[in-house]
């Protein structure tokens, strides 16, 4: 990350009403997270206090302060998926990757996250891997997804 690129992002959104969250989305898109150093630059660029920016970053589950692994596996924990056997899928994902929700594997390959409904409840249990959606997930199909992703790098 360099301050220049953060300021360039800020510059693109400054004219908009209520730009902070838009800026954070773009920073995270570009850098994989909201790096600690970015907060001060964003605050300066948008004329906010650092506490305000930090407050927003910490409020929203989507914003992360450390980069995720190379692959992001999001498993739905909400009711419809639970009703369709989702708890077994949650447990399997944790066991398979050897990590808990919110953690990244030691090799930096996978981050596992809990999500609360992906709008795929007619095909529960559901998961998202690197923004690709998957429904009626089974232990086997989850393994296949993880294997394919691991092979890709």
């Amino acid at each position, binding site marked *: 990350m360099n301050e220049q690129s953060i300021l360039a992002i800020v510059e693109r959104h400054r004219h908009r009403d209520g730009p902070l969250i838009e800026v954070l*989305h773009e920073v995270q898109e570009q850098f994989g997270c909201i790096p600690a150093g970015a907060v001060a630059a964003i605050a300066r660029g948008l004329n906010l206090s650092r506490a305000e920016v930090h407050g*927003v970053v910490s409020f929203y589950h989507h914003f992360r302060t450390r980069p995720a692994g190379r692959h992001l596996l999001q498993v739905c924990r909400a*009711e419809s998926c639970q009703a369709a056997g989702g708890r077994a899928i949650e447990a399997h994902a944790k066991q398979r990757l050897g990590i808990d929700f919110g953690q990244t594997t030691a090799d930096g390959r996978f981050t596992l996250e809990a999500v609360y409904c*992906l709008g795929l409840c007619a*095909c529960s249990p559901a998961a998202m891997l690197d923004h690709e959606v998957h*429904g009626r997930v089974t232990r086997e199909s989850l393994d296949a997804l993880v294997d394919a992703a691991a092979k890709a790098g």
Partner: protein
Amino acid sequence: MNVTVWVPGDAGALALGAQATAQALVAGARAAGTEVRLRRNGSRGLYWLEPLIEVETPAGRVAYGPVRASDVPALLASGLLDGRAHPLRLGDIEQHPWLATQQRLTFARVGRIDPLDLAAFRAAGGYRGLARALELGPEATVNEVLESGLRGRGGAAFPTGIKWQTVLRQPPGRKYITCNADEGDSGTYSDRMLMEGDPFTLIEGMTIAGVAVGATRGYIYLRVEYPHAFRVLNAAIAKAREAGGLLGADVMGSGLAFDLEVRLGAGAYICGEETSMLESLEGRRGEVRVRPPLPAEKGLFGAPTIVNNVITLATVPTILANGATAYKDYGQARSRGTLPLQLAGNIRRGGLVERAFGLTVRELLEDYGGGSMSGRPIRAVQIGGPLGAYLPVSQFDTPLEYEALSAIGALLGHGGVVAFDDTVDMLEMARYAMEFCAIESCGKCTPCRIGSVRGAEALAAVGRGEDRDRQLALVEELCDTMLNASLCGLGGMTPFPVQSAMKHFAEDFRGRTRGG
């Protein structure tokens, strides 16, 4: 030879492999010397048959489903591209009883057209509602919405016309139309389906709202979990702008301006609550605002603001195009029109059922749902998302209608119905409801922030059989405080699933063995 085949681009269909199916189809046909012209539609909402593909033949569209990529070679060999017989052949999907018995008004075009084909949208009745609103003018347009009996489909069921009237009555000046597309409730996906399958309807509905109340700017607040909808909406907005005056400085030659943009949320359930959503749109923490003032008086950036759900806004065009009376003729009592119900959870035939209000829970679960996916008896349903009550079998004859549900202490919410079979542990579902509230609380009030944590702990203790009576009494007490001392529905309604589970499934709280 050249054949047109429709394969849904809807996220639900993609989650079931529609993209692989599409690729197999194009490649397989090409190998046999036929070019497939692939067209993408939304989902018809029969998710149990997705990927559901439709082949254009001289006799009309012929559907097949569910078609996995591995089914494609055999299908092609038996004459799929001529619409020939095969065990997966469904024929004209609109004649399928699951769809033919529905009353699709809001979802009339979803699954039928290419979501980004503006000409097809117009040919299928699009922009007639806006044309009529421009003819009628603001007062009469608002009256039409009022007359239709439309109530907000986001959960609170407030009469839409009254909300619009309040904003119309505010002095001229900056006003906003905001669309709540946060759709956080488990078991719901109608917003997503509509945005992905017929985005111009939402754009038209928001534009009608704009011309009706004198707002020139709109925002769609979309949850970040919906990347497909994000792409479709942005593409549709760009098209509406380009296409000469559907959005922009001069809407349909009226001299009135209206434009809109999509803003992404960031994974906070509470931002579906309207004032939290406004805070988030302003770029702040999504903390709930104290009312009054109402958003209709002082909303986004302090200006009068309409906040409506996706389905509410997307229903306005049909109301304007066909008149309030035509809409009001559907439904019963104070629940007028149609409701897109969403069947989810442990269910054999899950999907979207748009019908006039009044279908019973049982009819939905049995006639449409076909019972549980597991084949075991359905033991409970949760209606209306994570803040909705759990219903036992003895309440399955309740009509899916606002007042009937409220009479049994339940709510319709956004119309999601999640089925659970008899392996469900209702104590665990109650504990989860408290946990969810703790995770998603905006932190502003103590009963919600702390009460939910303590509630989850107490229910976990009950599960371990520790000090059961005292813990259950504590949960009752916490629910009482949350009900009465929360600023918004997250803290205020989490007691609904908890208390309904305790009341109707008491055995699970008294040491019933799981799966028994």
